[in-house]
């Protein structure tokens, strides 16, 4: 049993069509810790000590959010700025997170082929995630392939929401039960509900 900590961040929670059902599903998964950051800190006043305690208790830290301008919603950045303190997460004596794993579960409005050298986003998705990846590295954490839904705005029309949410549930359960194959995931740029490397299935 791995200890899984899920941070969900969506300032437009009310009008979300993918992240909201994802979050509701995650909150219902037993044996994991689910935190709605905008619910916990509506005034952006983050309790640093509490968050650090949560991190220490976790093996895997997963951030779920919609990709906003090639980055996280602002509260996640605020969380990173404050919680990943020098001396705690990095720098001299800052090895408290060493050996833990960081994972992202994100939705992107652009279709998959936009994130190619020929697509209108020009770069692969992982390029935009390098700041987070390097954040994990500096904290001596493993950064594993993100769980992604592309073309998220079209997802309700395309019938992609339900399988994506179900895949998310399976992902969280597998991590909790140590059934998620991180090594296999590392070989991928990103994972989707169709490519989840879960042991004992398929």
């Amino acid at each position, binding site marked *: 049993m791995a200890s899984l900590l899920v941070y969900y961040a969506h300032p437009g929670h009310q009008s979300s069509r993918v992240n909201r059902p994802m979050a509701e599903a995650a909150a219902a998964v037993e044996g994991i810790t689910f935190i*709605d950051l905008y619910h916990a800190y509506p005034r952006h006043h983050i309790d640093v000590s509490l968050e650090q305690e949560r991190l220490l208790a976790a093996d895997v830290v997963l951030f779920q959010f919609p990709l906003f301008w090639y980055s996280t919603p602002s509260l996640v950045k605020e969380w990173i700025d404050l919680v990943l303190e020098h001396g705690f997460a990095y720098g001299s004596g800052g090895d408290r997170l060493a050996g833990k794993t960081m994972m992202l579960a994100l939705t992107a409005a652009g279709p998959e082929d936009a994130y190619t050298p020929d697509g209108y986003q020009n770069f692969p998705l992982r390029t935009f995630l390098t700041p987070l990846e390097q954040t994990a590295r500096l904290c001596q954490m493993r950064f594993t392939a993100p769980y992604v839904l592309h073309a998220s*705005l079209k997802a309700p029309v395309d019938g992609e929401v339900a399988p994506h949410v179900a895949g998310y549930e399976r992902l969280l359960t597998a991590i909790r039960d140590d059934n998620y194959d991180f090594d296999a995931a590392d070989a991928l740029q990103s994972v989707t509900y169709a490519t989840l490397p879960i042991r004992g299935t398929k």
Partner: protein
Amino acid sequence: MGELLFLAFVFLVAGVIAVPIASRLGLGSVLGYLIAGIAISPLLAAFNVDVVSIQHFAEFGVVMMLFLVGLELEPKVLWERRAKLLGLGGLQVGATAALVAGIGMALGLSWSVAVAVGLVLCLSSTAIVLQTLSEKGLMKSDGGQSSFSVLLFQDIAVIPMLALIPLLALPELADTMASGAPADLHADPHAAMPTGESHGGDHGHDHGHGHGGGHDDHGGHGSMSLVDGLPAWAQALVTLGAIAAVILGGSLLTRPAFNFIAVARLREILVAAALLWVISVALLMTLVGLSPALGTFLAGVVLANSEYRHELESNIEPFKGLLLGLFFITVGASIDFALLAEGWDQTLLLTFGLMVLKAAVLFVLAVIFKVGGADRWLFTLGLAQAGEFGFVLLSLTVASSVVPQPLADQLLLVVALSMLLTPGLFILYDRVIAPMFTAEEVEEDGEAPHQGSIIIAGHGRFGGIINRMLRGLGYETVVVDYSSAQLNLIRTFGIRAYFGDATRPDLLEAAGIEHAKVLVVAIDGKEQITQLVHYVHKAYPHVHVVARAVDRPHVYELYAAGARDIIRETFDSGVRAARSTLEAMGVHPFQAERKARQFVDYDRQTIAALASVYDPDIPLHENKTYIELAKEIGLANDEMMRGKDTAFAARSDRGWNPPTLADVEAVTKNAEG
């Protein structure tokens, strides 16, 4: 009655005309009063008005002034100043008296007369000097402090002088007195409140007019003393007991008494209580043969740390001002120009000689005590006159047959003239001497104002929170509140708080509004708040006012009164309560937070718009422009708050709302096409 009204009319007219003119000419109020006195003296003479008895009455202003000075002085400060007080004051009195006496003897006076004259003339005018110094804001300067030390010592020294002078009596003069010499205008020691001397033995003496009832006082003189007829040790005991009563009464009794009175919330009774306190101390001192001025000074020092300090100050201040004004007028009026005309050359010579002599002694002392720069000259010139206690002592010298009447008359003229010339010396200091030293002073300057720079008016539910936060952050605050229960409570937490009605300009002044940077108006009562804001905005435009508004219309009133930092006392808590309600209804906390922020932002914009169309002269329900704008704003507000399907949806939710599919496709096409 008619005579009293007439007198009041004459004095007030003279003061009201002369003082503003003098102030505008930069001569100071004291000179204004003196000139007013000179101007009305023929009129007073024509109506046979007894100027001296008025003067004695007005000398109570000096008593009150010393009480106020005492209030400003903490006992600790007084103790720290003991060296200056005794050294500077003692040497000034001793040296000046000895020199004057020596010159007197050289001019052919007998030694006893010369000593008496020396004692009379070594004193300076507490009234003129302190009044002028505080008017010019020089009390805190080195020169001002030195002057104060000397004046205080002189006031103390008057007591032994009163005891000493009758011992100098000349037998041949005493005989003349007993046979009922012609009345002298200046010699009625009994009405002299500030000294309250316990000398006796001149019942046959009267000044002649306007004071017929005076004899009854004289007759009762024996019974009006607690120490007459007692052996020396008992006298000392009673005197010490009286001083102890003032100190203990001040520190133990005044607070519960004022607490008790404050509950009634009647301002006039508080004024009465303050007056009662000063008068009872003065009376007690008189009864034991001490100087009432000194006694009230002591009473003031005892109360210097009290929360009622500012209330007492502002209650006594107007009486002090009026009485001192009256006193200065009487000094002006008592200059006997007929007598001056007779021997004007000699009188002027004596006056100038005296002032030069006193100035020389003061200058030497300033050098010895290292009072430097402009302060040395302030000290030298400021105290170079004879004082009001001189009048009292001269009456006593005549009464106790020490100094012959004609000499006393001439000396009275000298004393009055020297007082008359003092404002001139202050002007000389201001215009000529101080400017020469300004460059030097700038470097030395750096004394911070001793008052806190935030005044919080009202320390109830609202002001208390403000004070707690500001003090928590280390800001110095001065709290003024009208609830004695509240004050007792907060003082137990070590907060500097003063009792009083903050809407009174004088109390604000006493609390240091002039040096304050911010005034927080947190009192109750719509009208009082508006009135206070209006007054402070006009009188102290440099003070930033943060005002509490009771409700929305009140915001408009305060805006019209000049306030721009207006906090509705219940607005933020109302918004927070609404936010909590939304959360309890299941709204996501961040959504609730955003709605609250939108509401606050929108409200802040609209209330400014509404305040600008508000007209204090038109009731809200009749102000058409206001009503129309308010309706429009109200509709827009609802639209905005409900969001989604309205014109304001985009504004309220923008940014975090996902774009539509069409938008996304447009981006894709543009980017790829």
